[in-house]
């Protein structure tokens, strides 16, 4: 009998596992995939290491900082700052037609960019900044307020509103068109106030640290063990049944599989409302270059681009992808310590995609579409950064179908469902949600989610 059974060995499940195992619980993490990491895993193809998700670890604060989510998770998980080995970004940019705003890990740069390009919006931006709180100042009701409405009371230039929203929506918005105020506040803090960083070795370093710590505390991790059902009696989960029929008994279940995905497992639920599932998903087009991106004049860490004044954050209406907006990231462009540099030049481009259309393609059409949309994504991106196409020596690409296949999230939705369940509760008194659908997304967000739901619901008995 386990104290807690955790579904999923992504960031949130591993972080929750560490908390519970540290306080002597008997914990078991069940993961359906053959490896850990979930939406932010890593893989090896053609002799090269790739990260699934990592562009940037957000919420960067310097060593010794006592405030902010990074400091908080390091404390809660008992890691030293050095163990995440984060190097800060070189600098990033929001690029719209005829207008660029630069930002880095010091919000003064963004403020001065706004002052020079939108002088009449300086007071409005200051007002907006004053309204923004952190993770702990959010209840469900204020979390769900409309960001566009609140921004409208501060900023009167629609171009600036859309430019500011662009990176924040890209890195954490599960809702189309608008954004929950709570999510906006969290992302504003994570990206504009704190900023981007990356471990030289990529996401595997963070994941390996998490799993090593979890195991050293006596936590059990079972890979290739998917949960098929949660056996329920009288509003209470009794046990979980695995894909292979094995039954595992625990006092409670903490699931990072997603809300609807988890409800579907419960054997007292006959139907789920799939309209509540997230719809936003991506393709990621990765190019390996024969030189460093800076040799081509591509020296920014991340460029968030949009090709018209109006930013459309929505699922593609009539095609497999939408090329009007995208994110261009070069993992080379971080200030790695001791002058270290990645051997290969890398450019990663993220574009919005539509799950159903990708999913319906047969195998040969799928391969053709991958090749075509890689080309289109790059073609779209080089309008905003120097053209790197003749330096490409290898490529890789993944689609919503890939994301779905390896994480089992409905629609391959990267940021989960639009409606979040901040307190992590379900209709069952001993089944809780952490990760994406609880509400905190991204690497730091999902770790924070695992910690706070473990603290709230799984530790105090």
């Amino acid at each position: 009998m386990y104290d807690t059974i955790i579904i999923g060995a992504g960031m949130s499940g591993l972080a929750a596992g560490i908390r519970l195992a540290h306080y002597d619980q008997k914990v078991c993490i069940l993961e359906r995939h053959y490896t850990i990491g979930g939406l932010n895993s890593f893989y090896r193809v053609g002799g090269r290491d790739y990260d699934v998700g990592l562009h940037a670890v957000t919420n960067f604060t310097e060593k010794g900082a006592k405030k902010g989510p990074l400091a908080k998770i390091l404390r809660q998980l008992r890691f030293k700052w050095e163990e995440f080995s984060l190097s800060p970004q070189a600098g990033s940019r929001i690029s719209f037609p005829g207008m660029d705003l630069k930002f880095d890990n010091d919000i003064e740069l963004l403020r001065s960019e706004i002052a020079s390009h939108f002088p009449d919006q300086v007071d409005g931006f200051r007002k907006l900044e004053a309204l923004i709180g952190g993770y702990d100042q959010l209840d469900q009701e204020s979390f769900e307020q409309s960001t566009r409405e609140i921004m409208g009371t501060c900023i009167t230039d629609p171009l600036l509103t859309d430019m500011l929203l662009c990176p924040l929506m890209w890195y954490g918005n599960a809702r189309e068109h608008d954004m929950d105020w709570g999510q906006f506040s969290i992302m504003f803090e994570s990206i504009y106030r704190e900023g981007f960083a990356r471990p030289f070795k990529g996401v595997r370093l963070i994941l390996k640290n998490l799993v090593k710590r979890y195991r050293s505390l006596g936590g059990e991790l079972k890979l290739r063990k998917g949960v098929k059902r949660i056996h329920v009696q009288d509003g209470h989960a009794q046990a979980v049944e695995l894909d292979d029929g094995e039954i595992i008994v625990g006092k409670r279940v903490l699931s990072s599989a997603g809300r609807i995905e988890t409800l579907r497992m419960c054997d007292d639920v006959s139907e789920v409302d799939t309209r509540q599932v997230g719809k936003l998903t991506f393709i990621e087009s990765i190019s390996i270059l024969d030189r460093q991106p800076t040799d081509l004049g591509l020296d920014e860490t991340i460029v968030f681009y949009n090709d018209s004044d109006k930013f459309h954050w929505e699922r593609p209406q009539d095609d497999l992808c939408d090329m009007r907006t995208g994110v261009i990231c070069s993992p080379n462009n971080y200030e790695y310590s001791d002058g270290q540099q990645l051997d290969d030049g890398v450019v990663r481009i993220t574009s919005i995609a539509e799950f159903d259309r990708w999913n319906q393609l047969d195998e040969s059409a799928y391969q053709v579409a991958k090749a075509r949309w890689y080309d289109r994504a790059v073609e779209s991106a080089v309008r905003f950064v120097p053209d790197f196409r003749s330096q490409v020596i290898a490529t890789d690409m993944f689609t919503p179908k890939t994301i779905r296949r390896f994480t089992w999230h409905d629609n391959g939705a990267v940021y989960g469902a639009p409606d979040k369940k901040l307190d992590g509760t379900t209709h069952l008194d001993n089944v809780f949600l952490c990760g994406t659908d609880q509400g905190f997304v991204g690497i730091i967000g999902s770790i924070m989610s695992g910690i706070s739901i473990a603290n709230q619901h799984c530790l105090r008995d």
Partner: protein
Amino acid sequence: MAPAEIREAIIEILEDIAPDEDLSTLEDPKAFRDQLELDSMDFLDIVMELRKRYRVQVPEEDYGHLNSMASTVEYLTPKMEDIAV
């Protein structure tokens, strides 16, 4: 454990949960919150570490006693006096 030893035990816990804090200047009568950057997650950790290390239970309604070092030691003294160092 005597009060001085309980104090030492709390310092050890604080060193673990807040390694970047300078605890040498901690003033016992003053609230932790006014001297250290501790939030509700950290307070939960003080309680949980007491339970893990010394099997001492602090019920939620008593969390207020953990306000300062002085009040914490006073509150814990009867609960921990039988614990061998």
